[in-house]
């Protein structure tokens, strides 16, 4: 009886565990590591330009876009062939970028130029640019695509940009060196991480005010080593994950109360994260230990680490 059941169970499992693909940019290795999230194993390594950091897939998963800062471009990797097929006019030194929800426009932060560049992906042409604060970095887009938020590291602000008029409509002062911005899926909150300040600011996107400052305290660690960067919030808005850099931990935050529920020990110098589309797993890039940690989102446990290239930085996962 027991034996008879096994193949059936196996079938169900493989049907549930959809094989998504994760792409990890390796800042020093000048490569992108491709991971099968079903097997949680590396299946390919793609050579890209110099200093790859920000990485995103197009909405149809056909291309993986990676910002190669030292080559002043965003490269398009054809996900079917694993080849770099085009370079986008990104403006100088692109670091992080985000896609409009319709997948048509790419918004890129140009760190060296104090600008945000907008690029039409299909036509592969620049649509315009917006002047922001000093050293723009983090990029977040509202789920309706109307508001783009850029954080500037030395100006210490979140700039709210109207994507239609390409004008700044509000600026919110946050703690030192803001690096990442993420909206909740219902647009009720914007979270901004401050790497040097060691905090996450929760911002009301309508009133443009900071409503809560999330702070972190880990026994045995000095506050200087807690440096929040990447933020990922579950679709239901109930749980937020914040990568704490050299603290080697990911903080788990209650999305409603904004209290820290738990710290998960991951690899060294954790930068960015990505959910599998079913939100079962969260992958983190660990810059110094050259690996990716896999967090079981329901259990809030680190279940695996995967060796990748040199100094992994960004990660993105297919939706289909």
């Amino acid at each position, binding site marked *: 009886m027991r034996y008879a059941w096994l193949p059936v169970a196996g079938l169900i499992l493989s049907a549930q565990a959809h094989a998504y693909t994760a792409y990890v940019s390796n800042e020093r290795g000048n490569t992108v590591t491709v991971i099968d999230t079903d097997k949680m194993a590396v299946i390919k390594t793609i050579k890209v330009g110099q200093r790859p950091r920000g990485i995103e897939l197009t909405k149809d998963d056909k291309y993986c876009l990676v910002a190669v800062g030292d080559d002043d471009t965003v490269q398009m990797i054809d996900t079917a062939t694993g080849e770099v097929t085009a370079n986008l006019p990104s403006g100088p*030194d692109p670091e992080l970028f985000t896609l409009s929800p319709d997948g048509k426009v790419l918004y890129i932060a140009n*760190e*060296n130029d*104090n600008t945000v560049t907008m690029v039409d992906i299909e036509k592969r042409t620049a649509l315009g640019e917006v*002047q922001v*604060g*000093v*050293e723009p970095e983090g990029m977040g887009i509202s789920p309706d695509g109307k508001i783009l938020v850029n954080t500037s*590291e*030395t*100006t*210490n*602000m979140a*700039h*709210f940009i109207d994507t239609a008029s390409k*004008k*700044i*409509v*509000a*600026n*919110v*002062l946050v*703690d*030192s*060196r803001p690096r990442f911005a993420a909206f909740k899926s219902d647009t009720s909150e914007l979270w901004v991480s401050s*790497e*040097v*300040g*060691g905090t996450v600011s929760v911002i009301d996107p309508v009133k*443009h*005010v900071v409503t809560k400052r999330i702070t972190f305290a880990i026994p045995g660690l*000095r506050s*200087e*080593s807690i*440096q929040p960067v990447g933020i990922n919030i579950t679709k239901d808005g109930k749980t937020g994950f914040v990568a704490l850099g050299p603290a080697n931990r990911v903080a788990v935050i209650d999305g409603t109360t904004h209290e820290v529920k738990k710290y998960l020990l991951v690899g060294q110098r954790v930068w960015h994260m990505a959910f599998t589309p079913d939100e079962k797993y969260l992958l983190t890039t660990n810059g110094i230990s050259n690996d990716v940690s896999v967090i079981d989102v329901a259990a809030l446990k680190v279940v695996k680490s995967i060796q990748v290239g040199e100094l992994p930085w960004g990660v993105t996962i297919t939706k289909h």
Partner: protein
Amino acid sequence: MTGNAGAPQIGMTSLIRCPALTLVFLLGFTAVSVAADGLDVKIGYLRRPKHLETISLVQMPAPDDGLAGAQMAADDDDTTGKFLNQRFSLVDVHLKDGDDPAAAVQKLAAQGIKLVVTDLPADALLKAADAGKAGGMLFFNAAAVADRLRQEDCRANIVHTAPSRAMLADGLGQYLIWKKWPRWLLVTGSHQRDKLFADAIKRSAKRFGAKIVQEREFKDTGGARRTDSGVAQIQTQIPVFTQEAPAYDVLVAADESEVFAQYLPYRTWDARPVAGSAGLVPTSWDAANGLWGGIQMQSRFTRTFKRLMTALDMQAWTAVRMIGEAVQRTNSDDPKTMLNFMTGPQMNLGAYKGQKLTVRDWDLQLRQPILLTDGRTIVSVSPQEGFLNQYSELDTLGYDRPATKCRLQ
């Protein structure tokens, strides 16, 4: 100072480079409440007549060494300021030989300036700060390394963004110990400042368990730093000078006066590395530093000023950024309010050092890591692993609270 000839040259540096952009920024301003008329923050930059010539041609200080860093920071402050209806600008006061720094401070005070960044040696800085005390002026020491400014001669109106000699020596000392090079041959110049740096090195040796196997003095006999006859003599002088030393691991040179240290590497009698004023040098900043986003700072600086960024530039940049940060967080340009902010827990300055920078409340010294550079790359950054402190590891560099002789007033 009243005569024209002796008057310092005062120039206003306008930092708003693109009026059209400013308009966009101002339209964008809605989120943070500030006074309707905003703040116009003028910062004095008081600098010495001339920097010391260096032995190395490539290290010769540019005419705007330090000032350029301050300008970059005022520019950065101003970019944020545009969103907050705050304007930042510098008033550059370049002293001439024989000028009285106190008179220059009074002149700045007469223009309503209360914040002054200084590139002055210790004595001149004390004169300036004491002259500004009655008017409630706040000074930022971007240049003077003298430990006494953080110890017995400390002032409640001087914040130090320059590291002290003790911090520099400790940063180097920790690395030499980590490297297991505990036997130091100390070579000291004959000027007062060289001896003070040697004192700091000896203090580090004692703190971290190194042994100074011998101390030698290199006398400054005068003469030009560069000659047409070139290096022929030096090539024979240095080996002779360094021979017959007791067994040592590293030669540590104390030569702030730029008389001999640069001649030591590759010319010592024994095949030994050189550190201190040449070879492996402790510093707050180096143009080779690309760590922690530093590459952005370097490229911004090089693009703007067409030269590399020095430690003095960084120390001045940090001072003016601290001012900007304090004004922006407190929405006040009152020096007292600003100083309270700077010494408090809210202060978390990002300065490309991999961690937030804060101020020691016992002597107003900015805590900061010390870079160790060979002039081409960053070899290491102190504090080194294992040098612990119950409050902040950065306090393993320089005079910690229990060792302070400073009574702020």
